[in-house]
């Protein structure tokens, strides 16, 4: 990868006739723009923004559907030295009041000069778009110069200038605006392109990931832009409705790279009827990268088992540990490893009671399996720290701290949060993990951890066991901690959906079997099991169980519970 001064220079250097973005709407409707056409449209958007006196350093919020126009507006703002940020576009599933409140919080914090919306933006959502005194709200098509060839003044955008703001994952409105410089972004992309051996001419990315999250923005938009590589994208909602379209698009466009959260590795094979698998061909894919914390070996295996017969090669599934605060990736699994990310089996008892990884042979009773997120990218460092801040040796579990040449500058306008998050150059990720033989393993969020009788229990481990019971709907179990004031520790409470309503007539047997499974699997007792009818558990946008929403619902129905613990 060439070394560029800023992201705009990187785009300018792309071969004009190479396809850049293909927006896939459905089988009959797709739009592809080349790099030259993308540049032309971005300049046109820049001109429009400059007509509204957007200048260097001004924040520009983009509230547009996941289409090419949103991307050209984003780059157009950067061409002026302004600082764009994508926010989530309202969709049919959002609760209007929550969306408005979230938007109000985020836009107020950014003190934006301009909020750009599309023509179809719902009027009833506009009431709470916070506009500071100078700010303007405009429709994306409001330019006199749209369609015309536009010349812009040559603007020197320095590497240390802010390039854009991306929002950390989290509930809308509570998200933190992560401010990133051109240099930080380019450093990250250089390391990532090197680790993945990206060839802009031969590689292409498939994406359904939203542009307002780091996976969608960095891996599936800015990385292709800087590496001069094609990206074929569809809207996240269209994918959730029809997950099979992922197979269709990769097959048709021969995509080589994709980034996915862990659940997608189960969601696609489960929601695509097996009799249609043979229509597709995944042989073009060379890296499908799981970016979740934690990476689940069972999910990856399910995807591989389903699709190895349609060309998915061994060693195509990979892992990465990524976060908005580091622009994107901290680690990446070895792209040349013939069988994908490393795995390690550890003594379950020692892991839970002492937070120590004592490797054992695969298949040892009571062993816990961890999948590596890979090795650190160049110029990235990780430390593992105990609760009291003591640095831990390899094989000990603690909070992951990160330092790199792509770390964020600050949380925009939030010096209080920045000071808490970065101490002496090290960013506290809030994730628990360990290192072993130069690999980083991520276990889960520190705030999700349940501490039961001095043992460290991860809710997802219990949920996986509960969901393996044939009476329980797969993926519809949530484990949480309930403080037991008599014992001074947390008890484990599980809420799970049964497959069919009639199963609720015999809950005693099911509950007993679940308890036995959990005790047998990880050696802890569940205090209370709430079996619920189908569709009871609160689901996230993508259809997986939402831990915090389910907890709230359970509390409402059972106010006697003092449920404490974690969010999603």
């Amino acid at each position, binding site marked *: 990868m060439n070394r560029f001064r800023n992201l705009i220079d990187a785009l300018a250097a792309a071969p004009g006739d190479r396809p850049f973005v293909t927006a896939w*709407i*459905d*089988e*009959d409707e797709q739009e592809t723009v080349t790099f030259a056409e993308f540049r032309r449209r971005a300049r046109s958007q820049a001109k429009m923004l400059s007509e509204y006196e957007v200048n260097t350093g001004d924040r520009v919020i983009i509230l547009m*559907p*996941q289409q090419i126009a949103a991307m050209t507006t984003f780059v157009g703002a950067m061409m002026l030295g302004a600082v764009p940020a994508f926010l989530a576009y*309202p*969709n*049919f*599933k*959002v*609760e*209007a009041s929550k969306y408005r409140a979230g938007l109000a919080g985020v836009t107020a914090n950014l003190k934006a000069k301009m909020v750009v919306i599309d023509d*179809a933006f*719902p009027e*009833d959502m506009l009431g709470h778009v916070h506009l500071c005194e100078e700010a303007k709200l405009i429709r994306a098509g409001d330019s006199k110069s749209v369609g015309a060839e536009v010349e812009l003044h040559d603007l020197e955008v320095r590497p240390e200038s802010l390039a854009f703001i991306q929002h950390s994952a989290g509930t809308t409105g509570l998200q933190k605006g992560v401010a990133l410089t051109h240099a930080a972004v380019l450093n990250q992309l250089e390391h990532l392109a090197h680790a993945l051996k990206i060839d802009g001419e031969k590689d292409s990315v498939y994406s359904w990931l939203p542009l307002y999250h780091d996976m969608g923005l960095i891996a599936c938009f800015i990385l292709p832009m800087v590496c001069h590589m094609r990206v074929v994208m569809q*809207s996240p*909602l*269209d994918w*959730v*409705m029809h997950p099979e379209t992922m197979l269709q698009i990769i097959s048709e466009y021969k995509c080589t790279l994709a980034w996915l959260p862990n659940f997608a590795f189960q969601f696609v094979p489960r929601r695509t009827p097996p009799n249609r698998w043979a229509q597709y061909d995944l042989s073009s894919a060379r890296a499908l990268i799981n970016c979740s914390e934690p990476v689940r070996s069972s999910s990856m295996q399910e995807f591989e088992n389903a699709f190895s017969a349609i060309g998915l090669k061994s060693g195509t599934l990979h892992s990465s540990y990524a976060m908005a605060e580091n622009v994107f990736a901290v680690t990446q699994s070895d792209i040349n490893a013939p069988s994908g990310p490393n795995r390690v089996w550890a003594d379950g008892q020692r892991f839970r009671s002492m937070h120590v990884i004592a490797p054992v042979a695969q298949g040892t009773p009571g062993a816990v399996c961890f999948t590596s997120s890979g090795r650190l990218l160049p110029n990235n460092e990780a430390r593992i720290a105990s609760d009291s801040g003591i640095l831990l040796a390899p094989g000990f579990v603690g909070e992951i701290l990160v330092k790199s040449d792509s770390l964020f500058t600050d949380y925009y306008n939030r010096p209080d949060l920045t000071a808490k998050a970065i101490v002496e150059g090290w960013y506290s990720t809030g994730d628990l993990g360990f290192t072993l033989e130069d690999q980083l393993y991520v276990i889960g969020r520190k705030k999700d951890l349940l501490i039961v009788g001095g043992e460290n229990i991860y809710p997802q481990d219990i949920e996986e066991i509960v969901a393996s019971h044939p009476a329980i709907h797969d993926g519809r179990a949530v484990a949480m901690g309930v403080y037991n004031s008599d014992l001074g520790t947390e008890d484990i409470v599980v809420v799970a959906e049964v497959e069919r309503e009639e199963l609720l007539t015999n809950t005693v047997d099911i509950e007993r079997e679940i308890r036995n499974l959990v005790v047998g699997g990880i050696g802890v007792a569940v205090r209370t099991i709430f079996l619920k*009818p189908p*569709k009871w558990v*609160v*689901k*996230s*946008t993508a*259809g997986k169980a939402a831990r915090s929403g389910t907890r709230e619902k359970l509390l409402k129905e059972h106010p006697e519970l003092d449920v404490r613990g974690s969010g999603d």
Partner: protein
Amino acid sequence: MIEHIVRLIRKPGANIDENTPLVSSGLIDSMALVDLLLKLEDLTLRRIPAGKVQPKDMNTVALMFATAQRVGKARK
């Protein structure tokens, strides 16, 4: 569709007609809307681009069918 919604909200005998507000009244939660949109595709034999559907488009059964006609495309 109304039968499907009654099953979905788990209130047998609930009095829902094609103009009953579903989302704004809290009768169905937003997460159930993906289910409803898929059901709507089945009933209308149309493919509905989810990105073109707004919350208000799904608030009543009548609006849902109007939305399917407006933004949906006949399935092949």
